[in-house]
């Protein structure tokens, strides 16, 4: 695993503090969406489907920081839309770094080189570019519906690494993903020199009876166990090993959506990053008034039935690592042996 020791220490002490305080629900990663606008239009992306006046809007840096302070999570992920299109992205990142937040700036990297050359960011242990890479060149370009994006992303990654930035990749895998091709892709990312990779199964709720294409739980287990069994020693994952083992079917966790709360121009999204069932005006209101019992596997909610996405379950895995001896031992064992 590749999470730096200082970040691991921050997360561990934060989780232990929450436990000592007896907080049943606490945030781990704030998903901060300053805008929905994007320079790609990937089919199937639910983030960009808004009328023009909504796509033109964005949060102010002050609104972003208020949300960050209100929530208190030690890590902030900035997805979008495309955050490099946010006019104040440099100022926002600088303010977050100054607050000691570990920032993952999730980008398709089309603009990365340009923004780095413009001197918008300074390397810091707190800042990682998390580059959207949905597999090898052909698969990635097909997923984002534009040829050449994989090469642009690679160019952006190289430039960021050359300038001393932390770079990770984030990969969503859908039905039909070829485990062998994905393993080759892991090798290619390690050859590039990225710090670590993040994986999540593609999941989308459908009311339609035809759900054959979604990554159902059993299929997710099959895909991830084929892909991750006998992992190459050089592969580094920038995420909880227990979450990866959960994807492989080794654990059966319950979703903890409050672990990755989402804030955007509409407010605090209920109940999770994936579902939009309404908004609260404050983080406290989100925690107190969302009917959490209606979500997750135990609830029987059909929208959650096959969901295994990182924004619902990674916080559960981290909680297990730092909240139980068994979880801690298992995490250490995977870290030391490199065997998932």
């Amino acid at each position: 695993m590749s999470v730096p020791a200082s970040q691991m220490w921050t997360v561990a002490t934060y989780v232990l503090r929450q436990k000592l305080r007896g907080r049943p629900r606490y945030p781990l990663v704030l998903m901060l969406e300053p805008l929905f606008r994007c320079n790609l239009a990937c089919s199937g992306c639910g983030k960009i489907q808004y009328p023009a006046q909504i796509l033109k809007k964005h949060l102010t840096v002050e609104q972003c920081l208020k949300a960050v302070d209100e929530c208190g999570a030690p890590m902030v992920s900035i997805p979008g839309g495309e955050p490099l299109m946010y006019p104040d992205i440099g100022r926002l990142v600088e303010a977050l770094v100054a607050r000691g937040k570990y920032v993952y700036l999730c980008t398709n990297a089309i603009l990365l080189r340009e923004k780095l050359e413009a001197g918008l960011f300074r390397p810091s242990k707190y800042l990682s570019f998390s580059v959207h890479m949905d597999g090898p060149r052909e698969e990635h370009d097909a997923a984002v519906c534009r040829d050449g994006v994989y090469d642009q992303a690679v160019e952006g990654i190289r430039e960021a690494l050359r300038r001393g930035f932390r770079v990770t990749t984030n990969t969503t895998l859908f039905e039909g993903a070829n485990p062998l091709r994905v393993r080759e892709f892991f090798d290619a990312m390690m050859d590039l020199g990225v710090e670590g990779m993040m994986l999540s199964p593609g999941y989308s709720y459908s009311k339609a009876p035809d759900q054959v294409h979604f990554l159902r739980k059993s299929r997710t287990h099959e895909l991830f166990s084929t892909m991750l069994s006998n992992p190459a020693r050089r592969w580094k994952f920038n995420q909880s090993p227990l979450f990866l083992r959960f994807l492989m079917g080794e654990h059966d966790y319950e979703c903890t959506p409050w672990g990755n709360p989402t804030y955007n121009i509409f407010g605090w999204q209920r109940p999770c990053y994936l579902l939009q069932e309404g908004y609260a005006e404050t983080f406290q209101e989100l925690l107190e008034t969302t009917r959490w019992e209606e979500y997750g596997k135990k609830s029987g909610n059909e929208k959650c039935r096959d969901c295994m996405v990182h924004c619902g379950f990674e916080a559960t895995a981290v909680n297990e690592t730092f909240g139980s001896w068994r979880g801690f031992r298992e995490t250490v064992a995977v870290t030391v042996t490199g065997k998932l």
Partner: protein
Amino acid sequence: MSERDETLEGWEPEVGPDLPLARVIDLAFDYRGNTTVIKTDGSEVHGYIFNRNAGAPEPFIQMFDAAGAGPFRIPYAQIRTVRFTGKDTAAGNSYAAWLRRKEKEQAEPKAHDSEAR
């Protein structure tokens, strides 16, 4: 991500015993396009409904108007109906539709593939 392939675009529902206002508002909240809120006093607000809370002591919707101003809060009690007047930006863009397109693309050899042969 919306999975609806059919669209409510253009729908002008009449609220009545078979179609309660709360149901129309739920559908308008799920709709990825602008709508026109017809108020009980006859006035209209055109824009995007991004939130609704039917469980609040005074149920309300929240919206940005068509110019992006807002958010405005309108109580259910002041709403007669909602018309689905704006373009449905999610229509044909569902994940299921994407997968169907992808399958079709894979089934049909690309133009440049056949040229190369």
